């Protein structure tokens, strides 16, 4: 299947640690992907208003770009991009009237009828590499890490875009890297998403619940795939800890950073500086880091 890699806005700056580790890992697994030419922002959230079609233009345009390049699939990393593109794709298949209106509105573009499959990196790893093959490629098993998998919302809801029903994909992935996984009650819940900007108090209340569960689970690391979750759980964590002396700090990682480390890729590629100091320290302490370049 010919694939176009869709990075989205955040991965080029704030979440370079997600993109660079993911691409380096693919290279180490001898998988070549080409970035989609002329991609644009997907809009970050799927428009829920029935009378608002204009916001579907952005994600659909990306799908058209991939279709023009003769790709059958578009590969995404950011959970919100995945969700927005996958829902737009489904809308264009399921709703004939909206599809016609959107296609007619973009009359300078070829029509889109749902030809391009939207695939998340995790699913791609499972289906095209496989957990057993991945396990064999691991050079540094992450044996002493007790990782809490945090799926968040965008990979799982609504059902028609869920990367897996009753998901265990992150757990299977982490086990293939040699890590232990813990069961986290909040793993499939929301991180508070964009509310951290407009309603930081509501966000802190959400984080309190999540970190209560993380601490109870005995995890010493959190794995996630979304820059929004990473910002809330990772970068906002210090505020929560300042207010709650009973909570313990737990570093957050993009799942692709753990993948890169386990594959023995040089640590500089992972930009651990973007995760905050404790994230790098923990991996160093466990002697997982190949070169202390970060």
């Amino acid at each position, binding site marked *: 299947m010919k694939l176009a890699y869709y990075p*989205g*806005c*955040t991965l080029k*700056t*704030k*979440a370079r640690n997600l993109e660079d580790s993911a691409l380096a890992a693919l290279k180490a697994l001898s998988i070549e992907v080409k970035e989609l030419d002329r991609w644009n*922002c997907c*809009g*970050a*959230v799927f*428009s*829920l*208003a*029935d*009378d608002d079609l204009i*916001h579907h233009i952005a994600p659909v345009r990306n799908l058209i770009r991939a279709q023009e390049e003769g790709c059958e699939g578009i590969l995404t990393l*950011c959970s*919100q*991009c995945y969700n927005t593109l996958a829902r737009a794709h489904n809308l264009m298949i399921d709703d004939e009237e909206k599809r016609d209106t959107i296609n007619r509105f973009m009359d300078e573009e070829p029509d889109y009828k749902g030809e391009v499959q939207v695939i998340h990196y995790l699913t791609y790893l499972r289906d095209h590499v496989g957990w057993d093959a991945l396990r064999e490629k691991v050079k540094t098993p992450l044996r002493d890490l007790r990782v809490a998998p945090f799926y968040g*919302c965008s990979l799982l*809801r*609504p*059902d028609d875009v869920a990367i897996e029903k009753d998901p265990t994909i992150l757990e299977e992935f982490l086990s293939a890297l040699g890590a232990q996984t813990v069961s986290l009650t909040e793993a499939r*819940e*929301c991180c*508070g*998403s*964009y*509310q*951290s*900007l*407009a*309603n*930081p*108090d*509501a966000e802190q*209340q*959400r984080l309190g*619940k999540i970190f209560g569960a993380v601490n109870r689970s005995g995890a010493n690391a959190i794995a996630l795939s979304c*820059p*929004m979750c*990473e*910002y809330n759980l990772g*970068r906002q964590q210090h505020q929560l800890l300042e207010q709650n002396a009973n909570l313990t700090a737990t570093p957050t990682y993009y799942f692709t950073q753990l993948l890169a480390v386990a594959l023995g890729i040089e640590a500089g590629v992972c930009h651990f500086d973007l995760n905050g100091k404790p994230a790098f320290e923990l991996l160093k302490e466990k002697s997982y880091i190949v070169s202390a370049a970060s």
Partner: protein
Amino acid sequence: MTQVPIFNPIASQDKATLEKIALISGQDIYQCMQCGTCSSVCPMVETMGMTTRQGIHLLQFGKTAAVMDARIGELCASCHSCMVRCPRGIDVAKVYDAVRQLTLRENINLIDLNEIPKETLTDAPQIAFVSSFRKLTS
């Protein structure tokens, strides 16, 4: 025989608002059986002025202003937990998105860039801004 007048509790202005909500959301709120499942799974419910179940109940009676005052639409994070679990098949996220749209379409913004701390402005990822402004500005 004299006809008994039927008491209609919903004022015509509220009826028009309900019709807008139905049009924007594509949902029939009268399907709700008040089970409270949506509220029990809502991650933001504790910060809202009333539960999502109560909100739907008030909407059924046309009390849209009370639901807006409770800021349910504003505080919803569009996580879709309610939507995937509602036993009556109501997309609750869409209902509250429509309630929020009513405010936004009056040219009222629900986020003020000037109130965001400088640290957040430098730190937050692009998707945080794009989604906040998509969801909370007109």
